[in-house]
């Protein structure tokens, strides 16, 4: 067995991941290879230090509010969706009524009617373009097809 392979096994030896046969292979090799014996000792020291390293624990309160915070954000999201849908319905209804009123009002000059309708047409086209862009982005969203 080559040295690179043996060094990988030495690393796994310290991780407690070798079966008895593999351990025996490593031990046999260590008895006759000073370089790998040194590697074994150094890896052992690294293992000792790494096992003692710990990440900082957060305050207990963080765990107490962890789920609440997620729950609130999920609730808020649903609130925003309803608010947006309601606002869009009102906007379209108001827009429709306004256009209807302008067209039927004989006191408004034809030029003004054309100006207002062109302005509204522009707004509708811009909104439509934004909406299409959002749908395009959503379709290519990176996490859309997250692996199961």
């Amino acid at each position: 067995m080559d040295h690179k392979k043996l060094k990988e096994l030495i690393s796994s030896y310290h991780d407690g991941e070798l079966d008895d046969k593999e351990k025996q292979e490593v031990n046999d090799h260590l008895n006759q290879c000073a370089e790998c014996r040194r590697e074994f000792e150094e890896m052992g020291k690294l293992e000792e230090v790494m096992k003692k390293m710990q990440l900082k624990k957060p305050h207990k309160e963080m765990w107490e509010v962890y789920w609440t915070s997620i729950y609130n954000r999920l609730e808020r999201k649903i609130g925003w969706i309803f608010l947006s849908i309601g606002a869009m319905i009102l906007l379209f209804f108001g827009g429709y009524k306004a256009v209807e009123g302008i067209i039927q009002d004989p006191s408004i000059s034809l030029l003004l009617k054309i100006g207002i309708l062109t302005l509204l047409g522009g707004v509708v086209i811009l909104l439509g373009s934004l909406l299409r862009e959002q749908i395009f982005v959503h379709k290519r969203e990176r996490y859309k097809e997250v692996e199961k």
Partner: protein
Amino acid sequence: MNKSDRKPVYKDRKKDMPEEIALQKEQIFSAEAAQVEVKRALSEREILESVQKGDKEAYGLIVKRYMHSAYYIALGFVHNQQDALDVSQDAFIKAFRKIKMFDTHMPFFPWFYRLMKNLCLDHLKRKRRMSEVPLEDAKVLDEARDDREMKEALWKGIRELPFDQREVIILRYFRQMSYAEIAELIGRPIGTVMSSLYYAKKKLKGILGKYMGFE
């Protein structure tokens, strides 16, 4: 021996690890352990099926079960407590929105983990774009331990590892996972996990050598 021929070796390392982590690991990898928990008469699958029907309260059980693991893994990746909290919570929110795509016959955590890992990677890219100078070393190691300087140097070394090597180091040493558990979580063969760990440890050994005199 060919790496792909290696069989998973499950070792009982519970005696070597903090009780909190041992419990969390059982929750991640053992369906039986999840089922016997006092507060949870329902299996994870049943809970997730309720979540798929829109039950947010049921999702709370899932979040509470995995929040510790999610937070600490994110902390290992993003190096900052506030960012780890934000990213792990964002991942739970994202997972809730995608929950209908989840196959309830599969364990939840590996699916969630892949989603959170992508968020962590995006977060790191965003941070790098925003700061022209290298990111400041955040103090994320437990301060109550000895050999602070050496451990800080090792932590810096971990941060500078390629992501696939850093990932296996975080899971192996900060979540005490076996090779088989890591392989399941990251969706790679055990041989790849073994190899990545070896190369990562080789680099870290070089850093440790400067402090222990075996450079």
